[in-house]
C-alpha cells in the first residue's frame, strides 16, 4: 500500500458560520424570548390584579404586611392591641361606604412611627397611617380626604396593579405557600413603601376621595388643607410620600380638585369637623412624654 499525501479538509470539523452572526442569532433568540416572558408576565400580572379573588388577596396581604411590619416596627409600636386609634380610623373609613355595602375585604388600619406625614395601602386592605400625619391633621375633613384617597386606591385595585409583574411571583409564592420564606420572594421583588401609582390612578383616587368627603360632610371645605400646607413645605422628600408622589404637585392637584367639585355642583365650603382630642397619642390618652 502506497502512501499518497493529501491535504486536510479544513472545514470538516468547523461549522462555517461567522461568529458574529452566531452571536447575533443567539442574542436575538434570547432577547425575543425575554420579551415574550416579560410581556406575558405583565399581562398575567394585570389580569391577576383585576380579577383576583378576595381570599388570594387576603393571603398576599398577610404575607406582605408581615414582612413590612418586621422591617418597620415592632408590633408593640403599632398599638394594634392597646391603641384605640386604629379602630377610630377604621370607623372613619367605613363611614364612606353607603349603608348595606362594604369593602371586598375586611380593612385593617395600622399606625406607624414615621417622620413624614404619609398614608398608604398594601394589598389585602391593610392601611398604614404615619404618626406624623395624625399629629399634623387639623380637622377630620382633611384626615378623611387622605384616608378616602387610599380607599380609592383599594377600590380601584391600584395597590394590586402597582405590584405589576411581581404580583405573579407573589401570588405563586402565596399559593404554593413557601411558608415563612415567601418573604424572601416578596422582599426581593418590591419595595413596598415606595410603591407608586400612575398619575391617572392618583387623579381617580382623588376624585373618589372628594366624592366620599362630600357625601359624608355635605361639602368639600377643609378637605384639601393637608395638601395646601404641604405645598408650603418645599423641602419634603416628595417621592417617598405616597400621597404626594407622581404628582406635578400640588397646586395643580388642588386646582383640578376644586374644578372637579365646581363642575359637579358640589359645595366647596363648610364648617370643619373637629378631630377627637389627642389624636397624636395612643388611645387618645395624654401622651406619656
Amino acid at each position, binding site marked *: 500500500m502506497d502512501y499518497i499525501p493529501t491535504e486536510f479538509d479544513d472545514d470538516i470539523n468547523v461549522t462555517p458560520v461567522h*461568529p458574529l452572526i452566531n452571536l447575533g442569532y443567539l442574542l436575538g433568540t434570547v432577547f425575543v424570548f425575554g420579551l415574550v416572558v416579560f410581556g406575558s408576565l405583565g399581562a398575567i400580572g394585570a389580569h391577576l390584579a383585576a380579577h383576583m379573588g378576595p381570599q388570594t388577596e387576603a393571603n398576599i396581604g398577610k404575607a406582605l404586611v408581615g414582612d413590612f411590619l418586621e422591617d418597620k416596627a415592632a408590633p408593640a409600636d403599632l398599638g394594634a392591641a392597646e391603641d384605640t386609634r386604629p379602630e377610630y380610623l377604621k370607623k372613619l373609613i367605613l363611614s364612606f361606604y353607603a349603608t348595606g355595602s362594604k369593602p371586598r375585604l375586611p380593612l385593617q388600619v395600622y399606625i406607624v412611627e414615621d417622620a413624614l406625614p404619609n398614608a398608604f395601602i398594601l394589598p389585602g386592605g391593610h392601611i398604614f397611617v404615619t404618626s406624623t400625619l395624625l399629629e399634623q391633621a387639623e380637622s377630620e375633613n382633611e384626615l378623611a380626604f387622605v384616608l378616602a384617597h387610599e380607599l380609592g386606591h383599594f377600590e380601584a385595585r391600584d395597590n394590586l396593579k402597582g405590584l405589576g409583574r411581581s404580583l405573579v411571583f407573589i401570588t405563586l409564592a402565596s399559593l404554593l405557600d413557601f411558608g415563612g420564606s415567601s418573604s424572601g420572594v416578596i422582599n426581593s421583588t418590591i419595595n413596598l413603601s415606595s410603591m407608586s401609582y400612575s398619575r391617572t390612578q392618583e387623579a381617580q383616587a382623588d376624585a373618589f376621595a372628594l366624592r366620599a368627603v362630600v357625601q359624608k360632610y355635605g361639602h368639600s371645605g377643609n378637605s384639601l388643607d393637608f395638601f395646601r400646607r404641604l405645598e408650603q413645605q418645599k423641602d419634603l422628600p416628595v417621592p417617598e410620600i405616597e400621597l404626594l408622589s407622581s404628582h406635578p404637585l400640588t397646586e395643580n392637584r388642588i386646582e383640578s380638585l376644586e374644578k372637579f367639585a365646581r363642575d359637579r355642583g358640589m359645595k366647596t365650603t363648610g364648617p370643619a369637623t373637629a378631630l377627637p382630642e389627642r389624636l397624636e397619642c395612643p388611645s387618645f390618652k395624654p401622651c406619656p412624654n
Partner: protein
Amino acid sequence: MENLIVFAILMALGYGVGSYREKKHYEDIRRREKQTLHVPMMNFGAKQPLPQAQDSALFVGSVVITSDYFKNFSASLRNLVGGRVTVYETLIDRGRREATLRMKEQAIAWGATEILNVRLENSSISGQNRGKGQVAIEIIAYGTAVR
C-alpha cells in the same frame, strides 16, 4: 452603565484579538501541515505487525488552549438555548491540529519515515474556575515514530 462599558471592551477585545490570532494560527497550521505532509501518520499499530524498521520512538505533542471572552459569552448564550457550540469548534480544531503538528515535527526532526499508532487525548484544566466558564483544555497527540 459602567458594567456595560467593561462588557463591551471585553467583548471587543475577545473578538478582535481572538479572531486575529485565530486567523494567524490557521495560516501557520496550514503551512506546517503542508511541510510535514510527506510523512504518513497512521493510527494502527497496537495489535498489528509494525513495518520493517531500524528504530522506533514515542513522540508526544501537547497544547493547552483556552477560550476568549467573546467565545465564552457566545457559548453561555448557547447554553441557554442548546445546539452546537460553533464558537468552540475552531478552538478545538486548532488545538488538535497544533498538538498533532508538534508531535509530528519532533518525529521528523528525529528522522521518522512513518508515525504509527497515533492517538489523541484531551483533558480539561479547570482549576479554581470550575463551573465559572473559564476553562482550558489540554490536547495531547502521541504516536510511535519509526525510521
